[in-house]
């Protein structure tokens, strides 16, 4: 029997186009999940901040969603929404909510009350206050949440291979089925790299968006 090399570089070179397409799919699934997750989380977090009684049930629901095993969630959704992007995104978005809601709420609650009082005292309306004071000042905490959600989502996208998508997770699943190590290693390595690159990009975005937090006095 001829021992197959652990990694078949020739196979990789032959499949560069497919790899590129799957990376694109992976990024698209992640971006959509984060974008929609952020919008939903923002709406729920702000509702919870305005009506404090609503906050516990909101975080509780998001917490329950977060604890459902991803395999089970997709299996449960397939009979309803089929083998579609919609199914994938429902699952992926659900997993971002807890982290994002929490970070938005803690970010805004952590703002110095003197700042919001001064803003109100100078005639800020609630809406203006949200966009010009609260969200910008909560940004470092929110970005920390987005980074965590992004890394989690990149990993989860691989699971959607089970419903015919999966981004680079597609290679992992096919590799498993065919006992082909190269594909498994390739899929895993790409997923990890995507997570790290995305994380670094978000750090960069935060630095650009929060110039004030980089310059500090000696005191």
């Amino acid at each position, binding site marked *: 029997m001829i021992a197959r090399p652990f990694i078949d570089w020739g196979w990789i070179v032959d499949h560069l186009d497919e790899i590129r397409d799957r990376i694109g799919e992976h990024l698209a699934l992640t971006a959509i999940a984060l974008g929609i997750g952020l919008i939903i989380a923002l709406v729920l977090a702000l509702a919870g901040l305005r009506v404090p009684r609503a906050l516990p049930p909101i975080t509780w629901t998001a917490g329950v969603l977060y604890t459902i095993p991803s395999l089970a969630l997709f299996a449960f959704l397939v009979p309803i929404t089929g083998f579609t992007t919609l199914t994938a995104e429902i699952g992926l978005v659900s997993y971002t909510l807890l982290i994002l809601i929490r970070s938005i709420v803690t970010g805004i609650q952590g703002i110095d009350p003197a700042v919001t*009082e001064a803003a109100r005292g100078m005639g800020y*309306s609630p809406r203006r206050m949200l966009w010009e004071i609260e969200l910008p000042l909560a940004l470092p905490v929110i970005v920390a949440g987005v980074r965590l959600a992004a890394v989690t989502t990149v990993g989860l996208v691989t699971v959607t291979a089970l419903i015919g998508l999966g981004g680079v997770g597609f290679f992992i699943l096919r590799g498993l089925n065919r006992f082909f190590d190269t594909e498994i290693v390739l899929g895993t390595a790409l997923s990890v790299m995507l997570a790290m690159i995305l994380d670094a990009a978000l750090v960069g975005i935060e630095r650009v968006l929060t110039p004030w937090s980089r310059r500090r006095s000696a005191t």
Partner: protein
Amino acid sequence: MIELDAVGKTYPGAAAPAVTSLDLVVTTGEIVALVGPSGCGKTTTLKMINRLIEPSRGTIRVAGRDIGSVPGPELRRGIGYVIQHTGLFPHRTIAENIATVPRMLGWERGTIARRIGELVELMGLDPAIGTRYPAELSGGQRQRVGVARALAADPPVLLMDEPFGAVDPILRSRLQDELLALQRRLHKTIVLVTHDIDEAIKVADRVAILNIGGVLEQYAPPGELLRAPANAFVEDFLGADRGIKRLSLIRIAEVPLEAGPVVAPGAGAAEVAEAMRRYGVDWFGVVSGSDLLGWAWGSEAPSGAGGVALRPFEVRLQGADTLRDALDTAITGRTLVAPVFDGERYLGMLTVDAISRQVIG
């Protein structure tokens, strides 16, 4: 003008009202200080004036207009507001912080930039500070920026809640002086909350002393308050050193000076003895023209003032100093007098007796 008419506030769920029923008129161009023990409703009263807190009853008029009919945000853009911890926006530069209200009011860029320049100068700040963030400023600079920001749109009314509460005593005294100097130029109507009665006496034209429940115990100029406290509560609140506090309200220029036991440099023994006898003291001063050269004990000049070694008067008070400064000078020197000068020119002296007569008389 600010008029509070039977204004009250009861917080939801509170057993007693924070402010029961308060009548208060603040005249245009005056500084009114609200003082009183913690929890007496000073902040509540102040915040009802710009509707940060909605009154439960009564009416408040600013410049004749019932503020209940003006939307809160709109009302507040027309009233300056300064708080203890400044509440500067940490994500905005100093220039942007100052520009806050003008920007909301839709001023033109050029106009705003010019206004920032004016305010930075008015507050004695370094123009280079404009591009910095609040975290890069000292406490005193931040406090000044907070005031500049409140003044940006030139509001006729300024509300200040313990504006100097968070800074050290030396800086606080400087900022108080600056506020007074500023007020001499700007003539704002200012309501200032403080728990420091000395601060109230120093900066306010009138002081409102509040008791728990927002009960107005006395509303009077500082001098009147100290001279004739309305009741035991006010007396207690003013403290045991009322007499000394009154001295701090009187400038040396306002009171008559005495020549003092002084003689010319060549005065003979009889002249020296006569000067000391007139004032009942055992020392004498020597004046040459308008120079106060110093002083010596009578026993050191048995044959007159000529050739006697003189000790200098260390402190040279001016007309703008207060009788409190004069008393301090008098009781810490061997001669028990406070010599007063106009620049270097000797004008006369204040004795401890003369100073105390100002409080008694």
